[in-house]
């Protein structure tokens, strides 16, 4: 395999529970199916749950790197979903409020392991805490996941605003999750895009949508990645289409 610089992408949402982790796992699987070597890093250090979604129980996590003496390469697990994962563990109180030095340490550790991959996806936590912002800053590409709930819209906008105003980020890919249909999704995107253009003078980039489907919660309950069990479903094709767009990104 040719060795190129990995495309590092963060997935954020502002509000929790809009499907960030679900979308990250499914996009990673799609990219992996396309032949790319993919690494997912669970950056939701307060409430990590990528491992739960994938049905795995990791022996070591990112926490062991930061607070213990594990090397980050020893923490990587390869998953049945087709991609590698740096898992994190939930509920470790001090992890959600990492200090500056620890964030730098994680960034340095990530630098050493990402080089072998084509795509690195960072599943960041909810909110706009410093840790979340710093992980988003680590990734040159930022994806924002939102749905039609008003709180999702305002929180997604808050992430975009802070990243733009504080760190001069200008490229945000938007994914609309749980959309009724394509029209519903593109209307929602047009709306937040218009507000962003009005107030921040910043156009957003529409990456696509994922349709609302009972198969989504079912796959989560079964701890399976949906695109791997129902690749031809609406959700499966939506994810494949977004991954197709991401596959053209270069670092």
């Amino acid at each position, binding site marked *: 395999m040719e060795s190129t610089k990995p495309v590092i992408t963060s997935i954020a949402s502002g509000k929790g529970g809009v499907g960030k982790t679900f979308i990250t796992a499914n996009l990673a699987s799609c990219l992996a199916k396309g032949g790319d070597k993919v690494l997912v890093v669970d950056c939701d250090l307060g409430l990590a749950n990528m491992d739960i979604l994938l049905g795995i129980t990791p022996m070591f996590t990112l926490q062991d790197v930061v607070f213990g003496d594990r090397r980050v390469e020893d923490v990587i697990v390869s998953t049945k979903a087709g991609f590698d994962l740096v898992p994190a563990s939930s509920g470790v109180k001090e992890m959600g409020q990492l200090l500056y030095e620890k964030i*730098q340490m994680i960034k340095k550790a990530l630098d050493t392991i990402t080089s072998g991959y084509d795509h690195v996806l960072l599943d960041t936590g909810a909110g706009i805490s410093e840790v979340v912002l710093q992980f988003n800053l680590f990734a040159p590409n930022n994806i924002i996941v939102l749905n039609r709930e008003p709180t999702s819209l305002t929180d997604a*906008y*808050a992430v975009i605003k802070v990243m733009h105003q504080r760190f001069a980020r200008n490229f945000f890919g938007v994914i609309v999750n749980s959309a009724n249909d394509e029209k519903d999704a593109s209307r929602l995107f047009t709306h937040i895009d218009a507000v962003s253009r009005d*107030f921040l003078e910043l156009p957003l980039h529409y990456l696509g949508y994922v349709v609302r489907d009972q198969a989504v919660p079912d796959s989560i309950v079964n701890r399976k990645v949906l695109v791997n069990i129902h690749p031809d479903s609406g959700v499966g094709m939506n994810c494949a289409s977004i991954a197709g767009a991401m596959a053209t990104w270069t670092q």
Partner: protein
Amino acid sequence: MPSSKPNLNAPSPSKHPLNHIVQRPTPAVKEGPALNQLLKILRKDKAISAWLDVDDRGKPELFVVLADHLSNAERQALAGVTDVVVRAADPLTKMIAELKRQNQRLRSLTLTDGLTGLYNYRFFAKQLEVEIARTRRTGQPCSLMMIDLDNFKLLNDTLGHNEGNNFLVKLAQIIGEKLRPTDILCRYGGDEFAVIMPATTLFDALRIGERLKAFLTAIPWKLDTPCSASIGLAECDPVFAHGVSEFIDMADKALYRAKTEGKNRVCFEGKLQEMRPVASVTQDEKVALLKRDDLKGDNE
């Protein structure tokens, strides 16, 4: 500087009524020791005019001399104690422009540091007061950075003060380039610099401090030990807004710790708040985001 200026809008100095009165230096001029020595020159020139000003203590000052028949050396001697030395033929507008320029220079001299061109301590203290007031009023954060070179004394002792000064000038320029346009870089004194960082949390200041520290160690200089600096940081608390000296003390304390803990490092005073809302969504933005007429009827 004289406390008042002659009416420079007069048509021509030589025809000005004042000319008759002060055609010759007034007796009071004799009392000024510096001027006393120049009387000979002043008397030599028949067309001479001296416009005088007398300060509160009755000490005369000479600020405009009209001299047509003097040698260059004599003109220079007069220029040493006079704001302007002109010939009757010199255009007044030029003279005014020159005066203005000199005034501006004098004013800027009082706010900037003569060596590095950075803001001086006087400006720094004044500006810090403004930024603290802003923090108190708006709740916007403000951080303060103190930078102290680690081995500057050694540089001075080894290579001389001239070389040391040259390095300070170069360093001031480099640090300035590495900061953001909104950061206010000042020379605090000696080899110590202060940076007022408006709208900057301690967290962001720490990031910038670390970056600056790393950059400084890469600067080539003429000693065996590499160039490095110790950096102290503090953030003004918007709730218990500090006074100027209190704020400086905090940053100084952090700098002192950076020094005692082994130099070439960044230390900070106060609590590092990483969970601070940075740029919250304004009411207008909220209204715009939630005004979704275009989405009505979507509810199941």
